[in-house]
């Protein structure tokens, strides 16, 4: 390995050796496709917890490189978790900019996420030709994707073997039969990016996460905010489901605690009773139920009955 050297690739340190066949093989292939205005979809596959999202981010950062002032061209805004954000990016971004459609881990139902991803891919087959946004999809297993997408739409597959390491395959479907050929392209060995700035392996236990400006911290913050949002929605959904199971007697007890809001001028206002229950407990009652509840309250609490 006499000719082994460190070269500058888009502002990142990369090893280069002709003898040892080390060089930016994958990045150059993708860059060539971008310049040739070809649609490029890449999947990064591995089981959970190996770092497929980080690998996808590293590929994107490597491709887009750094500005003259040393800032990343790839921003955390280019990582999306849902179809709407993806379409916004497709319309907004300049050609050649990479998009990562990340898997939102445990927050969103996986089935819903795959549905969104599949509709995103199918709808952008044509637009990708003009918009030229390489799309990177970190996914647990490519078989979770629709057959048409994983076999005919994905051009490269990065199969990760361990943290920061993976094998790149070029996916080529046969034009004559149903065979799908996976040609070996190269190995990817990416150490954790920005290790020279921060040597911590993970941001999750770091107390500087809220204010840290390193890319992976920005990503973790974005992912956490999405998670929080999803958890909030999930809690609301759970409350609604729970509300359906409550008996009228339980609802009566809850309503009685809110007496001030619906007992006005010596009468029970059924409309306000419904509103108070919906606001406080997320319980929505129909007209008949509200009157039934009114009768129950008047029977069990004689002071509420009209004089």
């Amino acid at each position, binding site marked *: 390995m006499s000719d082994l050297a460190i070269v*500058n690739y888009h*502002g*990142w340190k990369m*090893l280069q050796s002709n003898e*040892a*066949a080390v*060089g930016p093989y994958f990045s150059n292939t993708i860059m060539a496709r971008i310049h040739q205005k070809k649609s490029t979809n890449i999947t990064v596959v591995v089981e959970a917890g190996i770092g497929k999202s980080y690998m996808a981010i590293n590929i994107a950062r490597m491709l887009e490189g750094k500005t003259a002032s040393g800032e990343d061209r790839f921003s955390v805004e280019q990582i999306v978790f849902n179809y709407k954000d993806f379409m916004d990016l497709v319309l907004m971004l300049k050609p050649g900019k990479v998009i990562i459609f990340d898997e939102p881990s445990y927050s969103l139902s996986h089935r819903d996420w795959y549905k969104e991803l599949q509709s995103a891919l199918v709808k952008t087959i044509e637009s990708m030709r003009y918009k030229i946004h390489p799309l990177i999809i970190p996914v647990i297993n490519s078989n979770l994707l629709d057959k048409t997408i994983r076999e005919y739409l994905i051009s490269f597959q990065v199969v990760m073997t361990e943290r920061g390491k993976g094998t790149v395959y070029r996916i080529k479907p046969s034009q004559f039969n149903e065979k799908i050929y996976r040609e070996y392209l*190269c190995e990817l060995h990416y150490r954790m990016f920005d290790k020279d700035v921060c040597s911590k392996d993970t941001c999750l236990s770091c107390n500087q996460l809220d204010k840290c400006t390193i890319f992976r911290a920005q990503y973790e913050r974005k992912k956490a905010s999405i998670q929080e949002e999803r958890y909030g929605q999930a809690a609301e959904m759970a409350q609604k489901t729970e509300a359906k199971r409550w008996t009228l007697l339980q609802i009566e007890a809850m309503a009685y605690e809110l007496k001030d809001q619906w007992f006005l001028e010596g009468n029970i206002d059924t409309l306000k009773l419904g509103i108070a229950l919906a606001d406080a407990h997320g319980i929505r009652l129909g007209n008949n139920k509200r009157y039934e509840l009114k009768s129950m309250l008047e029977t069990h609490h004689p002071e509420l009955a009209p004089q």
Partner: protein
Amino acid sequence: MIIAIHSMEAKEMSKISESKTIFELLTKEYPEAQLTIRDKVPQAFLITRAILTMMEVVKNIQCSTEEIREICEFIIHLIPTSWKDTQYYAEMEAAKIYVVQDTRPIFCEVKASIDFCLKNGIPTFTKTLSFDYFKVFSACIDLLNRKHVIAKVSSKEISSGESVDVQTKEADTLDE
């Protein structure tokens, strides 16, 4: 009757064979006939076969240098000229050897002296250009290796994930 038909066919065939070649006959029957990937020369197979033959020749205790020469020449001719690079030619240059042969005449089982030969204009020694065929074989193998024919090359993209202070032109063109 059958004999008559056969004789008719034979006559027609003879007429055709007189006027047209076999290739023309084939293309007449299959106008779209052309070579497919299956019909191409199996280059990799031939090279592998030649290397195996070389192994067999060397393995044989009675092998002659002529056999080695022939198989090496066969390998050289199997490799396309377009593949041959400067390093190959340099290695071939290094494999060159000169065989010196004593050509002095023999009188009564005694070789003539050099002085005698020089005095009478008789050539004493001849230098013949030859090759060290093991070096030639080695040059061929090196060439095939450089062309990634022999060993499967596992390409790697390795990055330390550290940023470089100096920017390249490539990076700047991305902004355009």
